[in-house]
């Protein structure tokens, strides 16, 4: 069940910090343990940075999830950037096109319970992660 979604702009490295803080606040409100909060916030930080660096900026949608007694948080990062030509390559650890460590996408996937990515050259990138309490 969807309890409403909020959208935040990611246009600068300060926005990445604000995105982390918003995600932290939602995770706390959902009763996440400290370790679960930290994992979700860290994944959000990696994906927000990707949105900024590779996507040229974009947005983060934050949704609070309730499914019976389960509580979760879903994050969607969207940009209108150049897109990723080879998604499976981009998910591999150590692969980077931007001078980073190449841990961003694969790391975020490992830190989340659910992960999906849609991207094609010229059509931007959309990455979804969800983590449950």
């Amino acid at each position: 069940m969807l309890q409403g979604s909020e959208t935040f702009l990611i246009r600068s490295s300060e926005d990445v910090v604000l995105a982390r803080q918003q995600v932290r606040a939602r995770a706390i409100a959902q009763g996440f343990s400290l370790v679960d909060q930290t994992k979700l916030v860290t994944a959000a930080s990696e994906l927000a940075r990707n949105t900024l660096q590779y996507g040229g900026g974009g947005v983060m949608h934050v949704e609070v999830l309730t499914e019976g007694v389960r509580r979760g948080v879903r994050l969607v990062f969207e940009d209108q950037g150049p897109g990723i030509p080879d998604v499976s390559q981009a998910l591999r650890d150590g692969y980077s096109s931007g001078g980073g460590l190449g841990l961003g996408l694969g790391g975020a996937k490992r830190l989340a319970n659910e992960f999906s990515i849609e991207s094609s050259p010229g059509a931007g990138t959309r990455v979804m992660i969800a983590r449950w309490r």
Partner: protein
Amino acid sequence: MERIPILKMGNYLLVTIQVDMHDRLAMTLQDDLTAKIVTHHSRAVLIDISALEMVDSFIGRMLANIAAMSRVLDAETVVVGMRPAVAITLVELGMPLKGVRTALNVEQGMALLQTSLAARDREDAPGF
């Protein structure tokens, strides 16, 4: 410009990171620290991250870079105070911070640096 303060204490440089750093601030700290090691002839750097609620791959890389650069400049670095949740997350992220010496708190970090500097002094001393 926003900066993380670096304290000089004898041969040591001390840094306590108390804010949620954006990427440019992390890069500035890396540059400032390497510059100060050279100007002050510092032999050791202690970085306290006990206030950090999150270390992602960018901040992790900054810590690894500082450790590597200070080593090249003949100084030693120790990172202290990492929170357990941060440690768990870093390893899962795929960034176990190889090459970065760590200690549980400032006191143990200082002790580690003192022992290590003393050992280096003995090696450097002329033999009998």
